[in-house]
């Protein structure tokens, strides 16, 4: 299962599909302050990214990445890696 949930942390692994929102959303409602760890998350559907942004979830593992996870940082901005 790509999402492991416990009280203080949700661990996202691999690709998180839109259908996983059905699991993640209730968990975020119950644990609004707990962290969502995306360190091992390789990709996510727009709906998942939107959910994390909308609920203001505390995201761990996004800072300093060079891929899509940049959207989960405060600027919601993505800079493509420069191809020299």
């Amino acid at each position: 299962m790509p999402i492991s949930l416990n009280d203080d942390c949700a661990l996202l692994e691999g690709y998180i599909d839109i259908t996983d929102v059905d699991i993640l959303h209730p968990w975020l409602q119950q644990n609004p302050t707990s962290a969502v760890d995306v360190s091992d998350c390789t990709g996510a559907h727009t709906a998942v990214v939107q959910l994390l942004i909308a609920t203001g979830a505390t995201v761990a593992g996004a800072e300093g990445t060079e891929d899509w996870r940049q959207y989960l940082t405060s600027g919601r901005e993505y800079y493509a890696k420069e191809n020299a």
Partner: protein
Amino acid sequence: MNALLAQFVAESRDLIEAASKALLDLEQNAQDKEQIDQLFRAVHTIKGAAGLFEFTPLTKTVHAGEDLLDTIRAGDVPFTSDVADVLLEMLDRCVDWLDQVEAQEALNEDAAAIGDALSQRLRALIDAPGIGAIPELSDAAPEDTALPWPDDVPALPVSGAVTLVTYTPSVNAFFSGDDPLRTVQSTPGLVWSRIVSPKEWPTSDDLDPFLLHISFRLVSSASQDELDAHFAYVSDEVTYEAIVSAGDAPAEGAIDEGLRAMAEQLLVSQRSLLASDQASPAEDHCTASVAVVLQRVAQAVSIELSPELDADNPRATIDQWMAILGAALRKPEPKAVAAPPAVVEEEQADEPETIKQTASPARANSHLRVSSERIDALMNLAGELIVAKNAMPFLAQRAETMDETGELVREIKAQHNTINRISEELQSAIMQIRMVPMSTILSRFNRLVRDMSRKLGKEIQYVVEGEDTEADKAIVDELAEPIVHLIRNSIDHGLEDPVTREASDKPRVGTIQVKAYQLEESVVLEVLDDGKGIDVDGVIAKALERGLVDQDKVNNMTRTDALQLVFLPGLSTKNEVSDLSGRGVGMDAVASMVRRLGGSISIFSEKGRGTKITMKLPLSMAVQRLMMVEIGDGLYGVPIDRVVESQKIKSSSIRRHRNAEMVVLRDRLIPLVRMRNLFACPDVEDNDILSVMVVDVDGRESGLIVDKFHPGVDAIIKPMTGVLSSYQCYSGTALLGDGSILLALNLREIIECQYH
């Protein structure tokens, strides 16, 4: 040929067949929506499949045909005979091309020119203005006119103009299978992007995570074409602006034409964005983004926008801004140039896709397409099995001489019966596979009748009866040609023109009817017309004139018999040669084709009323039961269905009339053929009792004098090959159970030999 190409050829042929049929039906009833759909679908499918290969002329032509049909389907162009003509021509052309593809995996060199001409004619019929001609977006944004770098986009390591894309997906995007962030991330030349959140998020509890609330801004270095292609699925949800970093920006000044055109286009796209029915909250950020774009457009063309954006009613402000900008951007001398694409697509009023709840049964897997060669191979094997089983009676005979108890003989006979039954069932099962309905060929002739009647100015209806009648595929296929000739003859020589018909109190429209039905082990095909019939006296006169019969014979003929003379070679009742039925393919050719198939043909005609030609053919060409006769030292086979009776007669009972010998059997005078003479075997004088096999050829009985009768066998008659094929008195060879070869007699030829 590779499997895909073979599949394409076979499939396309079927589709062309279906399309032709639909087309002809449409001519009867141009309003038949189902047929139009069917036709369109067939052509559409051919086109789709053709595109997989490098047959450009084919694809191009069918494409034009498809476009034409599309407009017909939409009701923009009426379906007329002219349209039908060109479409039929297109289908014919496709048949040709498919033949070429099959033969050489390529089209002939002339194909391109032919295809071009044909597509032009097809397209000429699509006269509704504007169709196919998507108004070209005025090449608005030349590379060098770009808006200044917007404030909300960070400085990026790019040089020259890049494109800023604002992507505002519909709230329901997820329900169309969209994953907008994926679309953004896979944008070609993506440099930077940002998720734009709505001003306010609903609380976590109120949030519907399956509705989309965010939008995107992104900068790409890809060309406009690449971006258009990338965002093609969501083209109404994106706007583009060419932007350039401050250093590269062109000097401010008068609005040059390129900039003006681009600004105008931006304005139009913003209008369309506002017009699309976006529900809130998407509406909010949609409006906001429009406002930003407008402000930037104004800035670029140095126009002051007033009033300030009203936060409570941004739409009202935007409308005012639009008006200001619209006026400022109007072209100096307004040209009658078509505006960029219509902004608001009206909900299409036509009924939704015909809802057919009575779904046709799934066709998939109900049919297996097998090449007829494979079936033939199977059939031959079954035939050989039947023949091989014929060896068992021989075996039983031999066993009888050694086996005293008779146990072995009984066993062999029992096994023979079992194998006999199984092989017969096997054979009939395979025959069933080979059986195809006559409709496979009969429906084709619609076209022939139509074309000929149009050409000759005759009005003709073609009626088919019993098209479900089945017969062996080989027979059905072979029948096509004789039927074509018969139909042509009927149209050309039989049916009168409408005026003549009316003058003789007949309906204007002539009728050609083809009837098929099964009669015992034969399939019967009748071609009837209600034309002027055949003049028997004319036929007789012509036959006499050409020396095909003598007066003596004619005197003894009934009128129906005399009519059969039309099947004699060299007799044509019409003096001039029509370019339609042509010379050389007369009734004699038809008759010989039918006979070659082991069939018979007869004609019946009533002057002024019409003509009926009846062809009777075996249901299958495969295994036949043969009577064996011995002549000289050879064994010969005679198809059992030709044999009337076998008799022993005294040589003294033979009567002589001129050079002919005859015998009276049951009050019938039967001409005799001495087979030994025919085969140049020495006479056996001392024989007082002669064996006569009476055979029926086209209703005429003849007696063959043979040496000995043998029992019947089942055999497959194979056509003669090699040197033997020139001997016309044999129809083929058959392999017997003991390995010997049996020659099958061609009775017609033998009887003819006797007379000439």
